[in-house]
């Protein structure tokens, strides 16, 4: 019964609920001719008896199973037989469900299950009628049955109507009158494009009196690119598409090319079998194209994590399970999730079969940890010809710089002043590590960016720049990952120069060195920085604050902070507690040779370089140096000399530094370009498949029997020659003999138009799912779909061309009781539009909509703090930064989807979070929705733009203008009484805003677009408020 409950109706009170429970009951008993096991009996058994008498062997009691044909006639442990055809009195099943003794009566009280007297009676009657067993309907392949003859022949537009009218006829009902033309064009435009018709389109349709007028509209809409956008939205809910990883950090990830692929596939009317194959196994198709690989991103839509401490094996099991469940829901309409831990209680699906299906996904090549990366592999890069041209230009530039370098080198005459110099200095030398710029490889970080200042901007000690930091509390800048490391020897000292602003003294200054960890700290002043504790190497107090107003050299014995001989440093942090602090050059005093020291003598440099364990000198140069001087060939000599002159010798180095910098700049641009090329997550399998095991109770570390790739036995076997991978799985799904795939798909299409599927539980076609309201119609549509070559647009057109679809959606009074949810289809569909459609329509009718297709997700208006309230510090989606300009006004399909905090303008209208597969949205009616439509900036701005449009295009009088706006939202003209209400409200608002012009100005300032200053503010504000009213009308937010 629950399935009949319309969620939104629930709030209308218990009386209404009671009424339609009775109504629903009357459908079930309407067909008295013959009891159908599958429709009438199995749901009762499955709900009440299968737990102990079903598929699950371990739970089975008394030797009785009621889920297979043989179970009914088999001899039970007691010797009795459950069902003796035609003889209810001899049938143990009937005896026990009607038993007077509570100890004997089934189901037992302890089970919490109970049959109603009607249900027990029905079972008895079924046995009396012969007790015929049928396999659950959805596992039997559909037949393309002949549409039934009906008496209301004039109402038939296509075969869909035969099926619907036959059912209505048996209930003594008929179709409603056709919807008027205005309602119809609005309905079909919404259904095929997700946007309303323009007044001009409505007028054109009204003016076209040819019999094909409607079909022409339908064909036009099916060709519109908006069609693909609208259809994709439903699909993206199902595949759980999002723009973030979904777990833990919830960083951005790049999968939008897949989203764009889906849109294009719908617009190109890609046959649904191909559509399916490319998504499930695009990467495995022989010679697969870039597009097909991108399509396989379908398999990468699952949520992923990189949470520290996770156990990889467990995470991989979750990914494969999620993918298997999603595939089952979308293509099979089966709740395979139930079989992760045990055999299915209701459907003939075993746990082992789950893991056989899971085995298709168990060898996925993506890692357990996504690395919080934008593009965790495997990925594809979408390199365009423009990108190629840019790369070529960079390469040409590099060649030019190299030529110039060679020319400069050729000009130099160098004579070594001291060819026999000793390799290292006997005295410790000061070596500067960082002075005016970032070190190679070092990542400059901090709680706010590094601020380099010049002598004009403040005190500088050495070179041309110092760094400055002003802070209110603990603050720091630091780097790690320097490739030019600092090598610590025995007795070394570390140093840095600091200048404290006497007018803004810090409490503390602190230096920290990184040798892989940060636990080496020295501080001056108070103990006000909470890094480290006690008198340890991670927390050394060096003394009072250095003298302010002058540069002071800070020096620390390396050993004092735990940096002993052999330590290699890659990072340094400058911290302070409050105040304004300047830092300048820092380094080491050491006997140990350091990377990048200056040498006048090439021989001295070579000897020095030879003893370094690691160095930033390129490997080919290092290799050449290691060869004895006498044994070097000309090329080796040149390599060494050229490097020395370019990078070491102080007299020539500056010339080449400039060239090197040019080269580095070009290479950086090249890398940036490479990084800017869009990527999309794709699917791939590991070269060697993982072994798959049944997991006991679904636990990743409790392996049961080994299983191989396979499909549930109740369904057809894998086609012969199907490869044992996802490609084989796709072949199996799209085999014309598959009983579920086409049915499940056309049912979802039907649901888009009528608000509910022929099978209401679109996600469950198993025995616990709802019985189809029109089983023969479902089968006819499914087979029609297959026979048409899986032609998606063909099915859409069939549905909207049917008389059933074109009926008026008015609810006749008696039908509110008899068929409140419109299960019988005696009227057209009427229900609230989805959040995306509402937002897009407001943008559209106000003229704000920017119809640019595709690309990275955009960030339109969103109330402040939605992301920040939940986000992980450091996440790439921690802080919401709204876009500017046209990105605000794109279709909602392109809104950036952060899965741990999805857009409230959509979730308020029942959009799912996209963390898990959803094929059927709820449809609630709440005060939060009312608040959103009244007050959300996006809708207020749209109201103002609609008001400007009224005043510019709508005519001269208020009445004309109000009618114009009304038409943009509802397609029709208001009736006289309605127009009178609009005018009355307008005049009240006008009087109020004339009395309070500043209020009018404030209202008109809402939104990023500027108001039309030529229009009178009070008048425009009054129209804005009426537009706000019109955008909130029940009719505006409803498809009628």
């Amino acid at each position, binding site marked *: 019964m629950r399935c009949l409950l319309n969620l939104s109706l629930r709030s209308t009170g218990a009386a209404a609920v009671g*009424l339609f429970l009775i109504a629903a009951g009357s459908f079930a008993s309407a067909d008295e001719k013959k009891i159908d096991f599958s429709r009438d009996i199995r749901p009762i058994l499955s709900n009440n008896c299968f737990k102990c008498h079903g598929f699950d062997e371990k739970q089975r009691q008394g030797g009785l199973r009621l889920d297979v044909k043989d179970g009914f006639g088999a001899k039970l442990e007691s010797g009795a037989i459950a069902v003796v055809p035609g003889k209810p009195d001899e049938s143990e099943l009937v005896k026990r469900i009607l038993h007077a003794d509570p100890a004997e009566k089934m189901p037992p009280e302890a089970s919490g299950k109970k049959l109603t007297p009607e249900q027990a009676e029905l079972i008895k009657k079924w046995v009396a009628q012969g007790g015929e067993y049928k396999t659950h309907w959805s596992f039997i392949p559909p037949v393309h049955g002949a549409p039934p003859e009906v008496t209301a022949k004039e109402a038939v537009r296509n075969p869909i109507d035969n099926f619907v009218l036959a059912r209505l006829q048996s209930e003594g009902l008929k179709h409603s009158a056709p919807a008027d033309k205005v309602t119809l064009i609005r309905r079909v435009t919404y259904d095929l494009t997700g946007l309303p018709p323009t007044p001009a389109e409505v007028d054109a349709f009204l003016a076209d009196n040819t019999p094909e007028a409607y079909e022409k509209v339908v064909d036009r809409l099916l060709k519109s690119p908006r069609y693909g956008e609208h259809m994709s939205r439903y699909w993206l809910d199902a595949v759980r598409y999002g723009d973030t990883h979904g777990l833990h950090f919830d960083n951005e990830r790049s999968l939008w090319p897949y989203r764009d692929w889906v849109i294009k596939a719908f617009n190109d009317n890609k046959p649904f079998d191909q559509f399916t194959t490319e998504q499930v196994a695009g990467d495995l198709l022989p010679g697969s194209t870039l597009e097909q690989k991108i399509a396989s991103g379908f398999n990468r839509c699952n949520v992923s994590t990189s949470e520290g401490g996770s156990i990889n094996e467990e995470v991989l099991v979750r990914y494969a399970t999620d993918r298997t469940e999603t595939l089952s829901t979308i293509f099979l309409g089966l709740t395979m999730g139930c079989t992760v831990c045990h055999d299915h209680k209701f459907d003939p699906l075993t746990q082992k079969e789950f893991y056989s299906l899971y085995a298709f996904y168990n060898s996925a090549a993506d890692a357990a940890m996504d690395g919080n990366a934008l593009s965790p592999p495997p990925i594809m890069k979408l390199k365009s010809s423009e990108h190629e041209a840019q790369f070529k230009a960079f390469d040409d530039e590099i060649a030019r710089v190299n030529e110039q370098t060679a020319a400069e080198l050729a000009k130099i005459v160098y004579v070594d002043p001291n060819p026999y110099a000793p390799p290292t200095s006997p005295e410790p030398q000061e070596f500067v590590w960082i002075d005016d710029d970032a070190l190679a490889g070092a990542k400059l970080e901090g709680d706010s960016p590094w601020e380099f200042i010049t002598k004009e901007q403040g005190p500088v000690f050495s070179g041309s720049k110092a760094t400055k930091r002003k802070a209110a509390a603990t603050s720091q800048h630091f780097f790690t990952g320097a490739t030019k490391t600092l090598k610590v020897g025995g007795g070394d000292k570390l140093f840095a120069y600091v200048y404290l602003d006497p007018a803004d003294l810090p409490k503390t200054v602190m230096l920290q060195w990184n040798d892989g960890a940060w636990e080496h700290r020295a501080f001056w002043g108070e103990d006000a920085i909470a890094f480290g504790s006690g008198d340890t190497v991670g927390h050394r107090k060096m003394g009072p604050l250095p003298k302010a107003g002058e540069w002071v050299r800070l020096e620390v014995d390396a050993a004092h902070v735990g940096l002993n001989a052999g330590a290699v440093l890659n990072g340094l942090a400058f911290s302070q507690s409050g105040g304004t602090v300047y830092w300048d050059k820092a380094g080491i005093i050491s006997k140990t040779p350091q990377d990048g020291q200056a040498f006048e003598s090439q021989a001295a440099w070579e000897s020095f370089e030879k003893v370094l364990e690691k160095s930033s000198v390129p490997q080919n140069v290092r290799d050449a140096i290691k060869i004895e001087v006498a044994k070097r060939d000309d090329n080796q000599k040149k390599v060494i000399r050229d490097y020395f002159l370019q990078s070491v010798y102080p007299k020539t180095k500056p010339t080449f530094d400039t060239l090197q910098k040019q080269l580095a700049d070009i290479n950086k641009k090249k890398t940036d370009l490479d990084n800017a090329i869009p990527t999309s997550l794709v699917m791939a399998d590991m070269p060697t498949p993982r072994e798959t095991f049944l997991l006991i109770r679904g636990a990743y570390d409790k392996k049961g029997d080994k299983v191989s790739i396979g499909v549930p036995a109740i369904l057809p076997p894998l086609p012969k020659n199907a490869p044992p991978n996802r490609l084989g799985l796709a072949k199996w799904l799209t085999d014309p003999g598959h009983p579920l795939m086409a049915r499940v798909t056309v049912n979802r299409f039907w649901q888009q138009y009528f608000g509910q599927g022929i099978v209401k539980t679109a996600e469950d076609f198993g025995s616990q799912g709802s019985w189809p309201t029109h089983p023969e119609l479902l089968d006819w549509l499914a087979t029609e779909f297959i026979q048409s070559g899986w032609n998606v647009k063909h099915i859409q057109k069939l549905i909207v061309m049917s008389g059933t679809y074109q009926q008026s959606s008015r609810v006749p009074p008696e039908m509110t009781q008899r068929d409140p949810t419109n299960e019988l289809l005696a009227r057209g569909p009427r229900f609230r539009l989805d959040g995306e459609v509402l937002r897009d329509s407001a943008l559209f009718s106000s003229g704000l909509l920017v119809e640019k297709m595709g690309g990275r997700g955009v960030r339109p208006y969103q109330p402040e703090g939605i992301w920040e309230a939940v986000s992980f510090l450091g996440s790439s989606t921690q802080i919401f930064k709204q876009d500017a300009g046209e990105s605000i006004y794109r279709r909602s399909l392109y809104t950036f989807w952060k899965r741990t905090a999805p857009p409230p303008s959509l979730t308020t209208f029942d959009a799912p979070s996209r963390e898990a597969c959803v094929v059927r949205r709820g449809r609630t009616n709440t005060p939060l929705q009312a608040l959103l439509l009244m007050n959300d900036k996006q809708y207020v701005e749209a109201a103002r733009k609609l008001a400007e449009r009224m005043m510019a295009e709508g005519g001269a009088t208020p009445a004309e203008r109000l009618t114009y706006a009304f038409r943009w939202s509802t397609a029709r003209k208001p009736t006289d009484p309605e127009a009178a209400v609009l005018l009355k409200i307008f005049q009240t608002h006008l009087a109020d805003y004339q009395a309070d012009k500043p209020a009018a100005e404030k209202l008109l300032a809402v939104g990023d677009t500027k108001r039309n200053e030529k229009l009178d503010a009070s008048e425009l504000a009054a129209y804005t408020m009426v537009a706000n009213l019109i955008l909130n009308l029940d009719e505006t937010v409803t498809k009628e």
Partner: protein
Amino acid sequence: MNPVQNHMLSETRRYFFGRMAKGLGAAALGSLLNPKLFAADSASANPADEALKSLGQMQILHHAPKAKRVIWLFMADAPSQLDLWDYKPKLQEFYDKDLPESVRQGQRITTMTSGQTRFPCAPSVFKFNQHGKHGAWISELMPNVGSIADDITIVKSVNTDAINHDPAITFIQTGSQIPGRPSMGAWTSYGIGSVNENLPAFVVLHSRLPAGSSSQALFSRLWGSGFLPTKHQGVALRSSGDPVLFLSNPPGVNEKTRRTMLDGLAELNTKRAAEVGDPEINTRIAQYEMAFRMQTSVPELADISKEPQSTLDLYGPQVKDPGTFAYNCLLARRLAERGVRFTQVFLRGWDHHNTLPSNIKKLAPECDQPSAGLIKDLKQRGMLDDTLVIWGGEFGRTVYSQGTLTKDNYGRDHHPRNYTMWMAGGGVKAGLVHGETDDFSYNITDKPVHVHDLNATILHCLGVNHEKLTYAFQGRDFRLTDVHGNVVKDILV
């Protein structure tokens, strides 16, 4: 009478009723209560029936409830039970000694510490004192909670299945580690509904992180409705901007202007309803009226200016600063007063993998006085008896140090095997310590309470049998506790 007309009439009545109530101001709080409460008055004269009345999907409660509402002070990121509640004096002898293998028993640990060569025991640096008539040991970090020891039950034996934040917090909130299930507040809203039609049944409050703290993320799924209708999802009251999303009229639109617009809207929608006959239109009219009433009732709720100083003092100095945990605790009481069923106050920042002593010293004071203040405030109003308050997070922390251990510094990794929560009011015993752990706070030695048991117990206090509150989805009757959970009778009155 035609039921549609009938329905419309009733909606119109409510429509006027709502407008009148607004005029009466805050004194009319009672009249804003769910009409379903009054509607049934004449039908059920029996007070026992009255006690069992449900306003949600359940027709009647499964048993008489002890709690009418729940406030969960949710300590996200997992506070250390070893430094707050679980007193382990013997641990001092084990300082820097490896956790005996006989205790650890090869249990799985996170990959953050599984690479450590040693697992040195880190006794707490904090002093513990005995509080209350039963002498419960509570850390010096929680002196105010110590002062209410006689009002609370401390459960030292809570345990969970998950070892990392995201799955563990999802697990305790929804009964499953995998996203997609309804949260406990959503189940409550669905099952027993709300007594106040002008406020959501389930409200979530986020506390600002204390300066200098860092924390894990939260996820909207933690208060989401999963497969239940979205009207049951938690509504996050925000501390800056609109307390409820989109509550305020846009600039330049005052209450009168909004009323004018809504009058026109109601008139046109009513005409359309008569024309089209869809009862859904009447529901929509009613929802717009409720939205209008919320525009008054929610700001009134968030306005604490009329609270007496003596009450504010209970919550500590931060109470006047919106967004602090102290402010949120006071707001939780105000929500409870107005009949909100389930309030969840999140406090993040307990993820002390390193330098735990100095970090917890900063965070605990933000938490201690407001938590205790809430209990005292509820008690002085006589509301503690039917309000269940819960304090705790998603798991505990390890006895062994993560990273370097010194006498006064250590870190602690995730520990799912046991941790401590406390509860008060709403049917829970006052002045009790339940469950025990070994000398290392590593294993439970007495009366384990699994997260499913805890959730079953909370529902039980509300008059709900956790095995019977179900929702059919994907062919299965789902419930908060999956197929697990036992009510912890020992802690109940």
